């Protein structure tokens, strides 16, 4: 039986809580949660394996090579970003623990150092993204800024075949409710215009004869998303994976 090494006690997470009329407020998991991992579940692993980007998850033998070189873990220093551990939690189906990382998993920057080095040929970066998608599609994680960006990016690209960088920037700023100061925008825009690099809106580059291809690919993309959602719902463990 796997023993999850992390302390289950979360001292910085206190809650007011009443169960059946009894006040159990206090630090999370000090006594509510058993330290025994008594619930093994293959569904998360199966779901991830069922995705083309996640199919290599079952190869992982937990050697830690990916985490050792992971630029988020080691270079950026976000030690709770641990691809090996995320894969482990998905493998044993420890949904509850995995959900603690719901707002961390998406931060993989796709440097692919893990894919470069994994001795078992796990496509780690793609598996991590698939685990993130799982969390999002089961409602455990909010749509992440990176996911919003991916969607904005894809729809921008599929429009003309060539990315309209400035339009993507504008769309994404709007999605995030962010506003780059007008002064900065103007400065950037002028610099780009001066060097003849700003192709946006009506001046945007496009791939000749893209219309048909764009439509076919958009249809593919939407069909894939629909299929994933349907799968996610049926894979979600009842009662959120609580033992």
């Amino acid at each position, binding site marked *: 039986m796997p023993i999850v*090494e992390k302390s289950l006690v979360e001292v910085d997470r206190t809650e007011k809580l009443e169960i059946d009329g009894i006040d159990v407020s206090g630090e999370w998991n000090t006594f509510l949660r058993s330290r025994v991992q008594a619930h093994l579940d293959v569904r998360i692993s199966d779901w991830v394996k069922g995705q083309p980007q996640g199919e290599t998850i079952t190869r992982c033998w937990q050697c830690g090579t990916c*985490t050792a070189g992971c630029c988020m873990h080691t270079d950026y220093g976000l030690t709770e970003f*641990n691809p090996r551990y995320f894969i482990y939690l998905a493998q044993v189906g420890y949904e509850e623990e995995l959900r603690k990382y719901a707002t961390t998993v998406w931060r993989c920057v796709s440097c692919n150092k893990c894919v470069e080095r994994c*001795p078992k040929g796990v496509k780690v970066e793609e598996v991590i993204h698939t685990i993130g998608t799982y969390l999002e599609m089961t409602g455990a994680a909010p749509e992440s800024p990176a996911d919003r960006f991916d969607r904005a990016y894809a729809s921008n690209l599929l429009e003309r075949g060539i990315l309209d960088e400035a339009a993507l920037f504008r769309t994404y700023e709007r999605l995030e409710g962010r506003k780059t100061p007008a002064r900065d925008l103007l400065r950037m825009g002028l610099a780009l215009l001066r060097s003849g690099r700003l192709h946006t809106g009506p001046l945007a580059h496009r791939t000749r004869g893209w219309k048909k291809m764009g439509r076919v690919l958009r249809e593919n993309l939407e069909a894939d998303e629909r299929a994933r959602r349907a799968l996610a719902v049926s894979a979600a463990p009842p009662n959120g994976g609580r033992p």
Partner: protein
Amino acid sequence: MNPILVLGGGPAGLSAAAELASLGADALLVEREAYLGGNPKRWHYSLLAPDLRPAEEILGPLIGRVEGSPKVERRLSTTLTNSERLEKGFRVTLKTADTVENREVSAVVLATGFDHFDSRRKFEYGYGRYPDVIDFKELEGMIHDDKVVRPSDGRAPKRIAWILCVGSRDIQVGNPWCCRLGCVVSIKQAVEIRQKHPEIDAWIYYMDIRTYGLWEDLYWKSMQEYGIKYIRGRIGQVTLAEGGDRLLATGEDTILSRPTEVPFDMIVLASGMEPGTGTKEAASLFGLPVGPEGFLTPRLSDMNPVDSGSPGVYFAGAATGPKAIPDAVTEGMGAALRAFQYARE
């Protein structure tokens, strides 16, 4: 009866040749190097696991039996360049730097062995770039001569790390198999060093420890009696530590789920075993199939591991996969017996 060709003068080939002689057959022992003893000799192996007996004590008598026997014709610095099947046996071409000769043989034992993995191909460990990252076959020689010092400055190391599975169990270098010996040899090296120099700290980074069968004892002793420490995690990269004097092994301690970046004076790579050059050549000369890993494949590896499936051709030792010396010696005997039976039929 024409002689029986034994290709390869390592432990398996020596054992086969000696055994043929004792059966009363003539053996033609062909070795590409100028000496007998194979990889153990080439790299000056020190003590051999699991009994920690000096390699010379095992190789010496084997070589002695072969050299002392009038039934064994030894051809050193010689390679095989052609083979042609006859009604019984083969006509083979032997080549030295300045001679080419055809010989008829009645059967063949292929004991062509393995090559150590070239650790430069594991780019992230910096072998060939940082002098104090060494291969464990080089450490064998150092231990043998009791000169365990840092190649960079000749100083004695205070703290040594071993990295296991280098070039083994690794799809990225194309070698998915386990080398079978990297664990036990690394542990043995650490024990040898700690026996003589208890002031040197020994750390072993592992993913699994595979000291199968009775060798497990050495693993236990290494912890209990010699204070060798084990960290579970495959090292991701080796770089120079701040100051440039020591090496930094970066990995994840998978038990802590934390990054580990520890400076070492010396790092030893347990490089794996690959099919030897001679093994690849023999496969094509005798038209034998090799497995996906490139080793020769016995026809029935469980029932008759020394039988190639091609009449008159037998296997011994690491030509069919990573193997310890006792196994290689045993297979040498088995192959000799089968070859003798075939030749006499």
